[in-house]
């Protein structure tokens, strides 16, 4: 990025950013309390649990935060119901503005892999790249799976009025592995994309600020910009960048999330031999 114009293009609404911030806070709490519970056999895990007031308290916080996340998910579903263009319903799911995976994404991901070797030009994305769609649906699926299994484990007496008790054995394993998957994906892949891609370094503020750098976006998502320009919406989407104070807040918040995530990741890998399943 040689020439910085500081013109940005609006990408997320206030509600969407709020959802993301709440998701970060609840996900990190769930990660810490859950990992503390899993690693309680190691001194590291005991220390982590003591931050939340010990094993029992960490477990309680985990359960309440889980309920909060389920509420957040339901609120998101409600939000989607208002957001979907019901008048041309099935068609709108397959528009380029939709997050629903489409044949385009398969093509673009293959194209992207070819680009990795530097033999062809980078794929020209539309509004959502395939990894952004994967991030969205990963969280969507993750909350369904973790939420359902978590509810089962929180209310075993209620659940066994309906289901046999051995489903709790299965639910616990599914909950664990899905949680490891979610944390692994966020702490490695999502953080990498948000922070270490050359145009995102040191941090991509898009999800906090609501707008993305125009030059980088023209380069990465030319189809979206072209579409907006064609429909005459481009001018209304352009915004100046946020104030220095706001940007500082974004960076501090983003980097504290990174710190917590990497702490869990590294500590989790180092202490993994002393997990008591």
């Amino acid at each position, binding site marked *: 990025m040689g020439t910085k114009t500081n013109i940005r293009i609006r990408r997320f609404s206030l509600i969407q950013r709020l959802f993301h911030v709440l998701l970060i806070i609840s996900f990190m709490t769930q990660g810490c309390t859950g990992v503390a519970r899993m690693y309680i056999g190691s001194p590291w895990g005991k220390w982590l649990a003591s931050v939340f007031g010990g094993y029992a308290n960490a477990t309680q916080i985990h359960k309440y935060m889980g309920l909060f996340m389920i509420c957040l998910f339901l609120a998101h579903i409600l939000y989607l119901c208002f957001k979907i263009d019901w008048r041309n319903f099935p068609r709108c799911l397959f528009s380029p503005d939709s997050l629903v995976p489409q044949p385009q994404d398969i093509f673009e991901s293959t194209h992207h892999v070819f680009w990795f070797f530097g033999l062809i030009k980078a794929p020209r994305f539309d509004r959502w790249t395939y990894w952004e769609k994967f991030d969205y649906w990963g969280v969507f699926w993750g909350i369904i799976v973790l939420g359902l299994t978590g509810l089962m484990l929180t209310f075993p007496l209620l659940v066994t009025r309906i289901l*046999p008790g051995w489903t709790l054995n299965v639910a616990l394993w599914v909950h664990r592995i899905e949680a490891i998957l979610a944390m692994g994906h966020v702490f490695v892949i999502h953080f990498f994309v948000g922070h270490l891609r050359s145009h995102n370094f040191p941090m991509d503020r898009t999800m906090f600020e609501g707008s993305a750098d125009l*030059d980088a976006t023209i380069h990465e998502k030319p189809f979206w910009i*072209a579409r907006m*320009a064609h429909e005459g919406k481009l001018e209304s989407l352009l915004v100046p960048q946020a104030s220095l104070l706001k940007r500082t807040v974004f960076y501090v918040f983003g980097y504290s999330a990174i710190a917590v995530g990497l702490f869990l990741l590294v500590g989790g890998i180092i202490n993994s031999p002393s997990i008591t399943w």
Partner: protein
Amino acid sequence: MKKAVRGMRLVYLGGVMVPLIGLIALLVGPLLWPVWAEVKGGSKIYRYRERVASGYYEGYEVSPRRARATVARPSTKRGLAAYGASSALVRIRTRLPDSHRGLKFYYRNSCVECHPKQTRNLHSVRAGITCRQCHGAEPIAAIKYHYSPMNPIRRHAYVCTKCHEGANVAFGTYLIHEPRAESAAAKENFPVLYYAYWMMLLLLGGTLAFFIPHILMVFVQELAMKKKKPAIDFLLFFIPNRFIVQWREKLIKKWKPPIDKLIFFMEQKFVVAPRQLLSKIRKPANDDAKDIH
């Protein structure tokens, strides 16, 4: 594009809607038909009362029936020859009123000396519960002994409810000493756990195996772009440079036109926004510097 979209819709119907409906049916079905969890099994017929019901809970006795956790069937087979029906009752320890009957020096041993693996469960590890808190005092009756408090018929009432107040018979089928989820024993005895475990692990491994090399390659390629070299030169640094140059030139000469053509064709076919729109936007000033070719 339309065809592709239509095809994708079919994929959605088949791949997303059907499992979704299945999941909903799985969750809602038992609500409508709670028999899956437990079956009331009290005998009304006097002459079977002794055998079917414990006597304590007769009218309300329930049995887990198909809700059993493990699929292992009690077998009379031991070694080459099988026990007869009557000798099995005496000889197979899991059916004895005192499962440790006749063991030498039994009272000098602790449980773990003979059952070392059985402490590897969440009740022991997390809650610090000892063997005897559930299995009871001497004589410890075998689980399959009909009058044992650990018998699945009344386990919930005699054992689980000590802590889990209100536990029912379905609750009692939670497997405390569950086999290692990845093991062959789990595949044999608790296949649901085994397959759930491996499917989730496949999902975990698949996601990371796809995306971690992916982001590494993005990193390498973007680093290479800064050095204005294609990543392939970067990756194959251990091969002498002249080979790479030759090889790369040949490769590009041969493959670039068809790949470009293919990508043009695919973009026309799959990308939803029409390609012609692209001419409408201004190109960034340093566009050529960023791309390799």
